[in-house]
């Protein structure tokens, strides 16, 4: 009876949905997965979760419930003879719930902000704050293989997604949050070995690895896309025949599309190698004028930066450093 009609309404790249699936799989519960398009929410989702209209929603025997952390506890209570998720002792349960809240309220936003940050002094401070949050969370791990002890438990399920997402964020934002590895920033050259070791351990668990979105699917989703954007500003500059030089990472998607646009428009332009060795980010735009060496008007420069930065993904809105220089 318990297994009757278990459905998960979710989206493949949501870490919160992953929590629910992880819990169900640990219990060995079969369920139907209903894929939701978050840009176009279904009538079904709005009926199941009219209050917050979010995924995940678990539907069991026709009864819907929302909030991933609440759902995980529900799963543990219903299939209580299966894999134990919550600790048995009330005090330990309170501790596990405390750290789950801390992770969601403090660590998640701190990590997200690093993902949306631009390279520079400000970013180093954000990385440091994310590290401080994770260092605090680490206290719940001390002396143990997993947050749950010898085996994966509630808190591992709640924060397990960090093991997949944090390395991707480190790569895309060119930072070290957990792993020192050639992406170090000047202020925060430290790593979090306990967390890193836990990342390796948790990804070795079959259920976790199978439930988390695969890295090769997730990475392209998180990268800034190279769609054409609002280029009103750019074209207004092009119209007056300025030469634009773009300092970018050669071969990056940003450099490719800017070059293509300039070629298409017949604009003289040069792509200078930003020297970051293949990391796909435009981290600055250097704009120079053509003959005469007239410095670029700051407002016009802002228009161009705005044109480049206007993306679906918010992260580039706090990008780049604009260097405005006279032509040599």
């Amino acid at each position: 009876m318990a297994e009757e009609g278990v459905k998960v309404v979710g989206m493949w790249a949501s870490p919160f949905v992953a929590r629910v699936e992880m819990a169900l799989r640990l219990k060995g519960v079969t369920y139907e997965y209903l894929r939701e398009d978050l840009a176009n929410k279904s009538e079904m989702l709005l009926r199941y979760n009219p209050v917050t209209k979010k995924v995940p929603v678990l539907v069991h025997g026709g009864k819907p419930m929302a909030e991933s952390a609440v759902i995980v506890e529900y799963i543990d209570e219903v299939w209580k003879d299966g894999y134990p998720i919550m600790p048995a002792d009330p005090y330990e349960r309170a501790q596990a719930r405390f750290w789950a809240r801390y992770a969601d309220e403090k660590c998640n936003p701190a990590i997200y902000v690093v993902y949306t940050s631009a390279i520079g002094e400000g970013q180093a401070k954000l990385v440091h704050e994310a590290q401080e949050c994770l260092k605090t969370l680490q206290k719940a791990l001390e002396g143990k293989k997993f947050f749950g002890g010898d085996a994966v438990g509630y808190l591992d399920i709640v924060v397990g997604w960090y093991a997949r997402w944090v390395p991707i964020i480190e790569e895309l934002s060119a930072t070290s949050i957990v792993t020192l590895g050639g992406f170090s920033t000047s202020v925060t050259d430290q790593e979090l070995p306990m967390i890193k070791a836990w990342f390796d351990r948790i990804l070795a668990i079959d259920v976790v690895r199978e439930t988390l979105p695969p890295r090769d699917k997730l990475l392209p989703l998180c990268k800034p896309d190279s769609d054409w954007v609002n280029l009103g500003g750019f074209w207004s500059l092009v119209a007056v025949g300025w030469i634009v030089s773009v300092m970018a990472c050669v071969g990056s998607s940003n450099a490719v599309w800017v070059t293509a646009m300039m070629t298409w428009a017949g604009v003289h332009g040069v792509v200078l190698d930003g020297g970051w060795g293949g990391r796909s980010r435009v981290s600055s735009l250097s704009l120079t004028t053509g003959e005469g060496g007239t410095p670029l008007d700051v407002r016009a420069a802002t228009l161009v930066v705005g044109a480049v930065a206007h993306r679906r993904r918010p992260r580039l809105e706090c990008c780049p450093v604009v260097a405005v220089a006279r032509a040599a």
Partner: protein
Amino acid sequence: MADVVLLDLWVSPFGQRCRIALAAKGVAYEYREQDLSNKSELLLRSNPVHRMIPVLLHGGRPVCESLLIVQYIDEAWPVAPRLLPGDPYARAQARFWADFVDKKIFDCGTRLWKCNGAALEQATRDMIEALGALEAELGGKDYFGGEDLGFLDVALAPFTAWFRTYEQCGGFAVAEHCPGLAAWADRCRGRDDVASALTDPDKVYEFALTLKEKFGDK
């Protein structure tokens, strides 16, 4: 130190949740008023992460976060009234709505005393909508928990002392928009375990005005 100690602040609705739960369960405890402008060593040691009240100390071990404390009280003293119901689905619903109270009522409430102008109008609309959702969830029952106090009742009851403040700031009447909820609030305040924990609504309003003076938008 007594076996059960509560580190708290007189007017805190979060602390009051814990007081209601302890009173409902008949648990004897020592109440220790905290000075948040000069935090005690015990508070800092017991809640090093947030340094906030309430903190429940049971046998010297600290439990933090009001809703977690209430769940802990329910589990550590598994006597009537059972604050969380036996049925897992009902438990999930109670937890969901308690989380909603934390996210919506407290947030809208803060904006009501803090903001002015268009922001205040938005806060009023948001509060009325949130209370409406809770009214629908109550659905004509005596308590959210059914016939007796439950988890969601404990989570929301302290905020009834703030209804007068919300009404004064937002220029609306709870009873007009949510008569069921207003009746529930009266019912809760008629109980010793709730009434003894709550602050007088006039004192709450006075307190909110001092907050507005100090932290409100200019």
